[in-house]
């Protein structure tokens, strides 16, 4: 789950990472109030979950209430790379001597944590990475041993951070690493990490992505959940605990396992169709989940046919079949189903479907993935 900048900064604050005083605002007048409380000059920052906001005109300096009104008025409602700005974050503007870059991620290839640190941070960091890769220090950290202050300082030296800022940077790196590990982040990034004329080091931006698998030990994440950017279909899927991504096509897709779901999308595409969604009902899907999945798909008005592609491992064929039968009794599906069922207890599953008395116009069964895809795409074109 991605956090907005202001949420990321609130998360940083839990780990004692210094951030600017400020507050969120949803209207122009609220913006002025927050600005007065933060102290002029302030920066008005668009809250969207995408990088490069500054370059897109979503970040403006304001010296007084009129300028806040002007900028907040322009930025609220602005479209930044397909994300509409519904909220701004207003914070006190800092004097900046230098801008650095710092992030922690998991390096899947090395199977270790990765610190990236650069003295040339700011909005052009990706160009820096291309032009002068050596300007970004990459340091692997063994998750078992972690990161200590001395190692962090050495990284700062290697990154050519000036001597006067090294201790401040090292101290923030150790805190950011704690935020990354104990805070269960997939990504914890500060760009820019600034050096002020006073010598203090401070986070001006926050890009935080949380690992959903760790939600069970973070009750404090509930509030972030409430502001997540989901469309109505995704919201419904969330309530039913399903892995769902909405797309624009006409063939609704239900598969078990992310790999098979992706493959189902591929095959539908290859036979000339378009998928309405990605939906993985997961390994242990039962009748309830299948019924829920069909409800979510049925909610999507673009869906003209539904392709259920199940290969039973943990998911047992009879469970899938029961789910479909139950769902058909619960919801009035607008689109016909084409199903391909194989694997664990597939035989029993097919038997249940056959004996349920569902008319051929509502449900057809196909022996292979390719044939099922063709049938579903055919139906979607009618």
């Amino acid at each position, binding site marked *: 789950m991605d956090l907005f900048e202001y949420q990321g900064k609130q998360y940083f604050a839990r780990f004692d990472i210094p951030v600017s005083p400020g507050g969120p605002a949803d209207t122009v007048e609220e913006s002025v109030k927050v600005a007065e409380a933060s102290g002029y000059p302030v920066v008005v920052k668009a809250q969207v979950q995408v990088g490069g906001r500054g370059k897109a005109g979503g970040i403006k300096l304001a010296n007084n209430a009129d300028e806040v009104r002007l900028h907040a008025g322009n930025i609220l409602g602005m479209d930044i790379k397909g994300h509409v700005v519904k909220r701004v974050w207003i914070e006190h503007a800092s004097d900046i001597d230098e801008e650095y870059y710092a992030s922690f991620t998991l390096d899947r*290839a090395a199977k270790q944590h990765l610190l990236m640190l650069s003295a040339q941070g700011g909005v052009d960091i990706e160009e820096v990475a291309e032009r002068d890769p050596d300007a970004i220090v990459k340091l692997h950290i063994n998750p078992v041993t972690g990161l200590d202050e001395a190692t962090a300082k050495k990284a700062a030296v290697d990154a050519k951070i000036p001597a006067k800022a090294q201790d401040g940077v090292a101290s923030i790196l150790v805190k950011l690493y704690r935020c990354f590990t104990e805070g269960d982040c*997939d990504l914890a990034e500060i760009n820019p990490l600034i050096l002020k004329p006073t010598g203090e080091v401070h986070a001006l931006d926050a890009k935080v992505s949380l690992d959903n698998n760790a939600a*069970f030990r973070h009750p404090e994440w509930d509030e972030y959940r409430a502001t997540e950017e989901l469309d109505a279909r995704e919201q419904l899927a969330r309530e039913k605990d399903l892995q769902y991504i909405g797309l624009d096509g006409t063939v609704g897709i239900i598969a078990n396992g992310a790999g098979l779901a992706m493959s189902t999308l591929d095959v539908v595409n290859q036979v000339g169709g378009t998928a309405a969604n990605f939906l993985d009902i997961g390994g242990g899907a039962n009748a309830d989940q299948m019924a829920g999945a069909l409800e979510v798909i049925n909610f999507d008005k673009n869906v003209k046919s539904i392709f259920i592609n199940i290969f039973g491992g943990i998911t047992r064929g009879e469970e899938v079949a029961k789910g479909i039968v139950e769902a058909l009794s619960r919801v009035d599906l607008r689109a016909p189903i084409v199903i391909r069922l194989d694997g664990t207890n597939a035989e029993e599953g097919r038997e249940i479907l056959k004996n349920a008395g569902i008319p051929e116009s509502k449900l057809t069964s196909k022996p292979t993935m390719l044939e099922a895809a063709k049938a579903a795409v055919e139906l979607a074109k009618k």
Partner: protein
Amino acid sequence: MAIFVNENTKVIVQGLTGGQGKFHGLRNRAYGTQVVGGVTPGKGGQDVEGIPVFDSVADAVKATGADASFIAVPPKAAPAAILEAAMAGVRFIVCITEGIPAQDEARVFNTLQRDFPGTRLLGPNCPGIISPGKCNIGITAGEIAELPSVKGPNVGIVSRSGTLTYQALYELKQKGIGVSTCVGIGGDPVPGTSFVDCLAEFEKDPETHAIIMIGEIGGSAEEEAAEFIKKNVTKPMSAYIAGVTAPAGKKMGHAGAIVSGGKGTAQGKMDALRAAGVKVGLNPTEAGSLMAEIVAGLR
């Protein structure tokens, strides 16, 4: 021959008294796997349809001589379960648990590497491993795996995605092609066993004559495999990469872009594999047909 497991492998099931553990543990036994015990703290002394249950892995290993473990416990308990098995001297651990936090996985992987180099972890979030006719640990329906033929040629399967592993088995079964071993390495960020680990074993295994690899978008495991294949794999291969049409995940920070440098897309992975001499299919069925051609050439 087979890789990682064979007919002599003795398996305990951590979580045998739970729903998943019981269902799949009993199915594995019914397939012919030597399932010699189960572990559930506090339930030592009981049994599950004749399989003795122990309080700890150490007790189970002592009593049964097990050398492999099948872990089917919830995500909260799985990291400790893996380390407990390693500490008890288990050589091969299969963990099917889905939903373990990435930070825990990274810690467990690196702990195993540092303190238990003799232990191999398969998974987490994987379907397991099957050497048809010999041993089945995990959630694969054994009947969809074609037995290896004595004369060969036989195919080894390695896959990141669970259900696509079955799909691959199924494609070969339809064509009557024998399988030496099928390994599902799992799609989590830090898998205990990688494509490269499996390819190296298949290359050494005299019973494996060709290899199918099933990958998916994200990460760089397929690109690393391609590098390895170029240098070290002499056996013919076919492959499929899922996710050609998958919507691009939105990325927020710059870290991904700085690190990945174009890696991670299905197209990039397919290109890398083709450059390494692998025949790449556009769907699982096509990868199966390409393998059938390879096998026909070997016969």
